[in-house]
């Protein structure tokens, strides 16, 4: 190779040489990223591997009895099971391996895709925005090198996660086929890479890193919905399923009849997206998006004269897009209700075992499905509250709080304005999500649950979301470095909500999740004490936030 380059360099077409030049310095950046993110990457890898291991362990111990396993398989045929799980290969002999392939992959891909997107944006677009990349790019570093280094480190970490994760499954589980275990982990890793490549493309198109993250996560959400909708049409997935990278991992049929070629779809999609990203990158300026920002107003609107209006202005686009996206998504979910009702009917008619498990009243199944969807919607809204509730912290670290508080604005007024806007935004996205679902169901003639029922659900979830917002705010005021703990609570709530029964967690552990205090939607009556308790916790946390922020130093750069 090297002997050939020496003499052919002069004859090589100019374009080829430029391409090599645009990648100069990649390896240095790779080493730098691994050094800089060694803790971050290790935490991601450790968490995902632990999840693989614990999932295997829990399934092995809790579902050791074949009858219990078949019961679980029957649940996986329900709409909720399909949305939360997979296409349903191997349901007739539902071993631990099959269960992991059918139920686990979707969550692995979700987690790994999030990791991929954050990693790519963090090392490309966000670096450009902070100005750090300017220093790096002024050195002997090619135009494509930062993105290439981000992708290479991503591939490396995904490879490590896949290898260690598979070995963990084999080590922890009994009779876990080695090759199939690798099928699960490698398939999930490759699917996640596709979303990393999507992020590379959005990094070129969008003006800001935050926009690139949002758009990429929206693609993940879309892919999630497409796969779920596709799989609901028929057992093993329909044509529609194949349009989602999630399916490319699930359709490998690990632990049933392993086939590797669907993974190639992930590889191909990744390559195409990366090529597209590189092509777009060559067409844009450093620090800019493909769409140039336009000139704005020379004078502010007369209304821009309070911290509240400014906070609203800063958060309005995030609110608009979240409300629109979540509203449409849950509206679409609502429209599925009749289909789900008839599916459940068919399932119970075909499958005597299922009928025995779920009892004669199958309407409970569709309500359960709705309830799980509502919980998802609430988790999305909690995520919104945490992201936007983190804005005051971002404002402070960017040095803008200093400017804001040097004005005749008290600390309480400033923090209150920020939190009020976040609170209103959270209320709006929750309202849009819940009523969106109602509207979707009503549009297609599903009227088992009334508008009033949905309103009760909405009011029951509201204080739980207040707890997440209160927690972020209190952390911001007292321990600003630890605002990430709010995400830990959200992740915990999700795991408890999804797998609490599976993991056989004790009661108090379940009760740590704010969502656990909310009654099951449409099924349980609202316990007034619980709701008031949630409100109390939320209010105490918010009060703590004000007390703490009034007495501490403003962090200055």
């Amino acid at each position, binding site marked *: 190779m090297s002997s050939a380059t020496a003499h052919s360099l002069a004859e090589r077409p100019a374009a080829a040489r430029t391409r090599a030049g645009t990648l100069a310095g990649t390896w240095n950046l790779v080493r730098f990223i691994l050094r800089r993110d060694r803790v971050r990457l290790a935490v991601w890898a450790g968490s995902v591997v632990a999840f693989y291991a614990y999932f295997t362990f829990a399934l092995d111990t809790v579902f050791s009895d074949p009858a219990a396993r078949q019961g679980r398989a029957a649940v996986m045929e329900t709409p909720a099971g399909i949305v939360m799980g997979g296409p349903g290969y191997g349901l007739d002999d539902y071993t631990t391996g099959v269960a992991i392939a059918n139920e686990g992959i979707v969550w692995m891909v979700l987690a790994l895709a999030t990791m991929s997107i954050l990693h790519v944006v963090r090392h490309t677009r966000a670096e450009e925005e902070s100005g750090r990349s300017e220093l790096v790019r002024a050195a002997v570093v090619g135009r494509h090198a930062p993105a290439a280094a981000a992708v290479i480190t991503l591939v490396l970490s995904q490879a490590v996660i896949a290898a260690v994760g598979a070995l963990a499954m084999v080590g922890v589980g009994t009779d876990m086929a080695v090759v199939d275990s690798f099928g699960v982990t490698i398939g999930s890793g490759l699917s996640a890479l596709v979303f990393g490549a999507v992020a590379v493309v959005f990094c070129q198109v969008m003006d*800001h890193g935050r926009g690139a993250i949002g758009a990429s996560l929206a693609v993940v959400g879309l892919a999630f919905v497409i796969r779920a909708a596709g799989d609901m049409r028929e057992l093993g997935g329909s044509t529609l399923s194949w349009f989602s990278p999630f399916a490319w991992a699930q359709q490998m049929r690990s632990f049933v009849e392993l086939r590797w070629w669907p993974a190639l779809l992930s590889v191909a999609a990744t390559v195409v997206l990366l090529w597209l990203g590189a092509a777009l990158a060559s067409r844009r300026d450093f620090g800019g998006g493909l769409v140039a*920002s336009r*000139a*704005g*107003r*020379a*004078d*502010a609107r007369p209304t*821009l*004269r*309070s911290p509240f209006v*400014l906070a609203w*202005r*800063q958060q309005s*686009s995030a609110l608009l897009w979240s409300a629109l996206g979540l509203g449409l998504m849950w509206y679409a979910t609502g429209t599925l209700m009749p289909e789900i009702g008839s599916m459940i009917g068919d399932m119970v008619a075909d499958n005597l075992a299922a009928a025995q498990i779920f009892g004669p009243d199958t309407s409970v199944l569709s309500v359960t499905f709705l309830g799980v969807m509502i919980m998802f919607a609430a988790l999305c809204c909690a995520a919104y509250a945490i992201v936007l509730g983190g804005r005051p912290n971002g404002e402070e670290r*960017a*040095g*803008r709080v*200093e*400017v804001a*508080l*040097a*004005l*005749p*604005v*008290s*600390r309480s007024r400033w923090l209150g304005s920020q939190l009020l806007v976040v609170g209103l935004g959270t209320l709006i996205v929750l309202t849009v999500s819940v009523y969106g679902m109602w509207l979707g169901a009503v549009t297609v003639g599903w009227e088992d649950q009334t508008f009033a029922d949905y309103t009760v659900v909405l009011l029951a979830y509201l204080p739980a979301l207040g707890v997440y917002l209160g927690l972020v705010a209190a952390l911001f005021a007292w321990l600003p470095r630890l605002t990430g703990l709010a995400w830990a609570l959200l992740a915990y709530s999700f795991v408890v909500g999804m797998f609490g029964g599976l993991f056989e967690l004790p009661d108090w552990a379940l009760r740590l999740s704010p969502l656990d205090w909310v009654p099951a939607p449409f099924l349980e009556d609202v316990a007034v004490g619980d709701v008031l308790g949630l409100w109390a916790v939320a209010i105490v946390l918010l009060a703590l936030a004000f007390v703490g922020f009034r*007495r*501490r*130093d*403003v962090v*200055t*750069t």
Partner: protein
Amino acid sequence: MTSTSWRASNTPAIEIHDLHKSFGRVKALDGLDLNVAPGEVAGFLGPNGAGKSTTIRVLLGLLRSDAGSARILGGEPWRDAVRLHRRLAYVPGDVSLWPNLTGGEAIDYLTRLRGKADKKRKTELLERFELDPTKKAATYSKGNRQKVALVAALASKVDLLVLDEPTSGLDPLMEAVFTEYVREAKAGGTSVLLSSHILSEVEKVCDTVTIIRGGRAVESGTLDDLRHLTRTSVTTVIDGDPATIAALPGVHDLTSAPNGAGFRLTFDVDNTAMGDLLPTVGALGVRSFTAAPPSLEELFMRHYGDELAADEAAADRAGQRPATRGASDNTAGVR
């Protein structure tokens, strides 16, 4: 109304006594004293990390002091923050703006919260500072962000301007415009605290100067007061032997170079030793003699130089700093 009564009452604009502030184990302020009389333009000089910005942030009520007293416009900065901020405008050294607001919107927001916005004044300032208000703040360069904060501060009618290295990132033309507006503010009775390490800027507009190092004031007074304490730089060409001059007490950093038959000497002399110097020089056959008053630059470099030396001594003890840097500094005076 309140502003007139305050001005009439002659309360100091800033009054700091024995102020302490630590961040963990780092002492940022260590017994600082600083006074700014009403209507005075006070320079606040010091090297990076001397505690200038910390002082200003205490004055703005962003940081809570550990000990000592700080008063601004007669009020307590932490407790009365909101009331006091109505009467002052602040320009930080590194301005962060809201990225999705245009420069014009940011200026309007800042001035409106301080009080009544003056549209004509804004237009005038935008023209003078050559700032395009229609661009989003995210696309502004550092200098332009600085201009946004300056325009917003100067457009407000306030009793006190707190300026933390306000001209960093501005080109010399814009610095001149800035100087002009500071003079105008002073003429209008506004007090100014101008922190800087750009000495010419302080020299141009300030009535008094406080030099701060390691969190405490090491010199303060009017420019004349400070010059009084310092040395005069002398350049002279003589025929005789320079050794007698070098031997005089109060002569520092002497360098000599052959110049025709005689020598060309440059050195600093303590102002108190000037009386002994002149007859000695006169006896050596003077061809030319120039004596320059110390610029603030030199004044500043003495403190800054001391600190550098102290830092280096500390670093040498810790064994961190390469020897070359310290060595070159030590030899600088001898040559």
